[in-house]
Structure formats: structure tokens, C-alpha cells
């Protein structure tokens, strides 16, 4: 828990410097978001959220973790609620702060039986049509483990896309895992493409491992 508190303070300081995210856990009122991510061999996640309001979404998720420091695996099935705490609609920018919480079940190689998993996190983002920045922290803990995945992204677009255009972004991602899942900071370079309701992030980490995220809104 102290780690999480440190992260919350760091996030608050970070957001004061206008560092924020883009792939949002809430699309729009009455919209459904499906996200799937392959995180360089350490994490895989699938999520599906339905938003009854533009400030709330609910849905299930599945997270699998494979530690590169030990033969430790975790599989977590959860249900989560995402809340848009605040949105700033500015003339040429938008910024958001989301928080979420959920419960689930976890199985893994480092412990016996199924454990109750508790999930909490936040995301802050700021974007214009050419620049965006994000910070996200996702905590999972149970009686057998506690880990957090912290992700920061900074991106720029070579041109300002409009509503019907293919949007192209270049993104640098830094990710840290706590709970002895991965040593050090994992850096990745990504190309982000989106058009209509489809979104793709694809790239490589500094170790040459693939980092891929796909998202669909409808």
C-alpha cells in the first residue's frame, strides 16, 4: 500500500506538469469499448466496458502476468467500474482524470487456491491535436501478492488529423512493474493509428519485444 500512496502523490505532481493519456476506459454514453493488449511478454489484458453515461463505464477484464524475474504467473479475472472524475474541455485541448476500482479472482503459480483480487487505479491525460501525454497506474492486490503497473506515454502527431482522417501518432512509452514482475523501466516506441472506431498501438520495447494494443469503440 505505501507504494500505491507514493504513486498517487507522484501522479498528482505529474499531472501538475500536464502529463496525461489517450486510450480512455470510457468512450461515450451508451458506447462499448473493447481493449486488448500484449505487453512485451510480461502482461496480456483484455477488457470490455459499457458506458451508461459519459462519466461511468462497467465491465469485465482478464489480466495475465508472466514475471521475467522468476517463473511466476498470475491470471486475474475481474469486474471493474471506471469513473471520469473530471474533464477539462478547452479551446484546443482536452484533459481527463479517471479512477477505477474492481474485484475479481486470481490464480497463479506462486500461491495455492483462488484468491480475491482487489483492483484500483487512475489515469490522467492531456491532448491536443498534435501532442498528448498520459500517466496511468493500475494496482492489483490479494492476500498472496500486490503489484502495480505504472505507464507513462508521450506522443506527437506529424499532422493534425480531422474527424474522417487516419490519425497517426508516434509514442514513447515507459512502464514499470512492482511486485517483482519486471526489473527496471521498460521503454517502448510505438506507432498509433486510429480511424473511425478502431485503434491500434504497435511497436517494440528496447529489448525488441512486441508491444501491441488494440481498441474498438462502438
Amino acid at each position, binding site marked *: 500500500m505505501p507504494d500505491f500512496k507514493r504513486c498517487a502523490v507522484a501522479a498528482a505532481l505529474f499531472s501538475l506538469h500536464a502529463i496525461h493519456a*489517450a486510450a*480512455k476506459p470510457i*468512450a*461515450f*454514453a*451508451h*458506447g462499448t469499448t473493447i481493449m486488448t493488449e500484449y505487453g512485451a511478454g510480461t502482461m496480456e489484458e483484455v477488457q470490455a466496458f459499457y458506458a451508461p*453515461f*459519459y*462519466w461511468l463505464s462497467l465491465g469485465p477484464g482478464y489480466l495475465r502476468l508472466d514475471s521475467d524475474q522468476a517463473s511466476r504467473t498470475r491470471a486475474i479475472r475481474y469486474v471493474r467500474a471506471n469513473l*471520469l472524475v473530471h*474533464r*477539462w*474541455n*478547452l*479551446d*484546443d*485541448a*482536452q484533459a481527463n482524470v479517471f479512477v477505477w476500482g474492481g474485484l475479481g479472482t486470481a490464480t497463479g503459480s506462486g500461491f495455492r487456491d483462488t484468491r480475491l483480487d482487489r483492483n484500483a487505479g487512475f489515469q490522467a491525460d492531456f*491532448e*491536443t*491535436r498534435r501532442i498528448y501525454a498520459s500517466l496511468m497506474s493500475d494496482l492489483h492486490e490479494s492476500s498472496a501478492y500486490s503489484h502495480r503497473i505504472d505507464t507513462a506515454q508521450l506522443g506527437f502527431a506529424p499532422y*493534425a*488529423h*480531422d*474527424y*474522417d*482522417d487516419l*490519425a497517426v501518432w508516434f509514442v514513447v512509452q515507459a512502464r514499470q512493474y512492482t511486485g517483482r514482475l519486471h526489473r527496471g523501466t521498460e521503454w517502448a516506441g510505438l506507432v498509433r493509428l*486510429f*480511424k*473511425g*472506431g478502431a*485503434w491500434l498501438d504497435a511497436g517494440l520495447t528496447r529489448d525488441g519485444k512486441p508491444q501491441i494494443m488494440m481498441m474498438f*469503440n462502438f
Partner: protein
Amino acid sequence: MRNSVMSVMLLVSSAGTASAATIEMDVNGLVCAFCAQGIEKTLRAFPATADVVVSLEKKLVAVATRDGQDIGDEELRKALTNAGYTVKAIRREDESLDDVRARLKSKQ
């Protein structure tokens, strides 16, 4: 007689597609096409909506309404607020939505 039949045919054919008016809205926070889909989806759900145009460049959302129909300012403001955006101004123009599209393209 032939002219009358032609006139009736023209009236019938135009009734289904013609737009009575175009409503333009200046919207804050319009920076990402992926995120702005909710605006189009919400506005197209109105029975009075004939077509919708969104311009991130001009921070503009334009709605063409069906012949003889309208959507009230409060309904529009509520729809965009519920989509997560802030409406700065709403105005009604005589211009068709195709003219709005052409104007937006010509100024790019």
C-alpha cells in the same frame, strides 16, 4: 397534367432527403476523432437528424435536420454535454450541410 405529375414526383422525391436547416455548434474539447464518435452517434439518434458533420479543425459540429423538423437548443446542449463535450455556441444557418462541408474543405 404532365406538369402536375412531374411536380408531385419532385415534391415526393425531395421530401425524403431534403434538409430544412443546418444547425452549427461550436464545441470545446474536440481534439480526437476517436473520442468524438459519441457526438455523431448521439446526434444521429434524434429522429429529426438527417446528417451530421464534425470538424476538429474548426471545432464545429453541424447537424442537418429533416424537412419541417428541428432540434431544440436545450436538447442539443444536453446531447453534447452527455457525450462529454462543452457547447460554446449554437446557431441556425440557411446553408445546406453540403455547403458547410464544402466551406470546411475550402478553408483547410
